[in-house]
């Protein structure tokens, strides 16, 4: 099948590859895995010990660079490079913030770390903190993850009691501690600068960049923001070495990644796979294939433009480059399968409503366009009151929003709309003409 993978035989990019083993999610879901005792019994905090006792900060950063790990929060920026942006220490406070706001529809991988394996995250943060001479860390957990919040706080207290956090960690002269901060329901808080405003007790509007967080972040001090998975990956990069990590994936996307799948498939959930695994392998071999006839899939969370259910897309490796080449994004790796019978206009109405609800209201195109106009246009279409011109108007209005907003949220809303128009315009036009959807929406609720 996937000739896109040709010449990459040396790289592990299929979970079928015998050399592949699950690492990050090894213990997730196992009872008791959230305790320090369990974690240490399974080799926990050894990576941190190695770093603190036998490596220099610079060496850690180099190791991360060598691993080729790219940010798992969506933007996919090389983590090692990001860490190297922190200015040299000046004696003042420096921060690391773990982005555990996970609010992108279709994404649910970070939650289980907090609930079942918080020590892995803590260890990752210790490594990152040491590498960047960071003095204090925050974990920004979305408000709904209360269980995960409690587990993580408990784990931090355990770790502190065991000398793994706080003053002179593991007897070294490195000191570092972590506070967990609960969000309260706002998708925009996932955007790193909005997140910092939220953490500082302000309204969570995004900030101007520059200055970038590394120059002036939390409280105006050097700060690095990383996704949960980026940080847990770091643990294994240190444990098994950059070479091991880089032996998996594709040219531009290394290592293993947590892919999520939801919608009508047999086994929804989170799967850890080598990067470059194809959608087909993921959806069929692991998720067990669709349970309703599919017509489209969203590749990496609701913000990533969808693809129609076609071989050329199913055989696409799940890596940053391939998706970018095909006009979408890997995002958070949250696949959503859309069944044939689901009216695409209705599906997009659902997403547009989400973004309208989550717009922060700072800038005009997003507040008025995404927040007010788009949902009303969709409401009208879905109610069967649309006219054919309305489809062109919709296309024109989203075109006016695209690229003109203050932060990426507005684009995250309009790009999927544009993709749906590109692949399924017929459904829009049918609905506008006949006043009823081409496909009766089929949402099922199990008895």
């Amino acid at each position, binding site marked *: *099948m996937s000739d896109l993978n040709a010449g990459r035989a040396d790289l592990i990019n299929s979970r*079928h590859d015998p050399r592949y083993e*699950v690492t990050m*999610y090894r*213990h997730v*879901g*196992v009872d008791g895995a959230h305790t320090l005792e369990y974690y240490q019994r399974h080799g926990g905090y050894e990576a941190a010990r190695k770093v603190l006792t036998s490596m220099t900060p610079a060496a850690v950063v180099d190791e991360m660079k060598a691993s080729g790990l790219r940010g798992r929060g969506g933007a996919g920026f090389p983590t090692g490079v990001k860490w190297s942006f922190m200015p040299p220490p000046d004696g003042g*406070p420096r921060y690391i913030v773990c982005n555990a706001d996970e*609010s*992108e529809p*279709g*994404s*649910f991988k970070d*939650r*289980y770390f907090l609930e079942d394996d918080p020590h892995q995250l803590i260890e990752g943060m210790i490594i990152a903190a040491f590498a960047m001479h960071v003095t204090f860390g925050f974990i920004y957990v979305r*408000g*709904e993850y209360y*269980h995960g919040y409690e587990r993580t706080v408990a784990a931090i207290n355990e770790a502190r009691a065991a000398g793994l956090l706080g003053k002179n960690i593991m007897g070294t002269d490195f000191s570092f501690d972590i*506070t967990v*901060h*609960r969000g*309260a*329901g*706002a*998708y925009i808080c996932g955007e790193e600068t909005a997140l910092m405003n939220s*953490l*500082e*007790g302000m*309204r*969570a509007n995004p900030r101007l960049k520059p200055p970038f967080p590394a120059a002036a972040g939390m*409280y105006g001090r050097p700060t690095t923001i990383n996704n949960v998975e980026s940080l847990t990956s770091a643990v294994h990069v240190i444990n098994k070495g950059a070479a091991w990590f880089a032996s998996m994936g594709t040219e531009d996307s290394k290592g293993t990644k947590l892919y*999520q799948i939801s*919608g*009508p498939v047999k*086994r*929804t*959930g*989170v*799967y*850890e796979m080598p990067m470059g695994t194809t959608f087909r392998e993921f959806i*069929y*071999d*692991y998720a067990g*294939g*669709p*349970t309703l006839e599919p017509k489209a899939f969203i590749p990496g969370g609701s913000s990533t433009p969808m693809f129609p259910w*076609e*071989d050329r897309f199913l055989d696409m490796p799940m890596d940053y480059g391939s998706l970018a080449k095909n006009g979408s994004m890997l995002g958070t790796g949250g696949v*959503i399968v*859309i069944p044939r019978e*689901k009216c695409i206009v209705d599906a997009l109405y*659902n*997403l547009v409503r*989400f973004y309208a609800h989550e717009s*922060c209201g700072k800038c005009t195109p997003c507040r008025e366009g995404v927040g007010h106009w788009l949902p009303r246009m969709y409401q009208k279409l879905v109610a069967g009151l649309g006219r054919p011109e309305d489809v062109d108007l919709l296309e024109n209005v989203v075109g006016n929003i695209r690229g003109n907003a203050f932060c990426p949220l507005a684009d995250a809303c309009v790009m999927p709309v544009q993709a749906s128009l590109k692949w399924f315009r017929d459904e829009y036009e049918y609905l506008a003409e006949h006043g009823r959807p081409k496909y009766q929406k089929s*949402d*099922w*609720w*199990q*008895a």
Partner: protein
Amino acid sequence: MIELETTTPYFADKPEVLSEILSRYPEEGRRSALMPLLWEVQRNERYISEARMHEIAEIVGITATEVKGVLSFYSTYHEQPVGKYHIQICSTLSCALAGANEMYDYLVNELGIVNGETDAEGRFSLQKAECVGSCGTAPVLLVNDTYYERVSKSRCQHLIQALRQDDMPEPWRERGGDTEGANKAIPLGRSTPAAGQEGGEA
């Protein structure tokens, strides 16, 4: 400064709670305590009154206006008391595909309240929520802070019954994928039909 309603300050008799929350943040970040303070009040009073806003403003050294600006920004702080069981229904795509809307309609009938309302006895309140990060186990309900996932119709009925008896059932735990423990997710072999060939297997 206007006169506050004469309510006893929430933190008057909880100095240790207050200092614990403040101690979580560095000095330069006193204002960061704002959200946890709001949570502390809401978890105990089920909403945040204006008097509390003024009190918290005093504590972190900002104006009540700023406090209101912040808390109103988020969707899960309440300015009106909510029911003893605050039910949030995730309504975003993955949950919608799995029947969230039907579930909502069912609850509206069962509880006789619609989105944003609280019933007369103050037991239930209903709120449509946006993606709560549990798409793999759709559809999903939150009762206060507890997730109930893969909520089938029968489970939903049973849950409401239980809540009426004031007992919160243990949330059933099914997640799928590697979240059941990596070894559970054995591959189903390499049966990978080309597009168009597969039919709905459900």
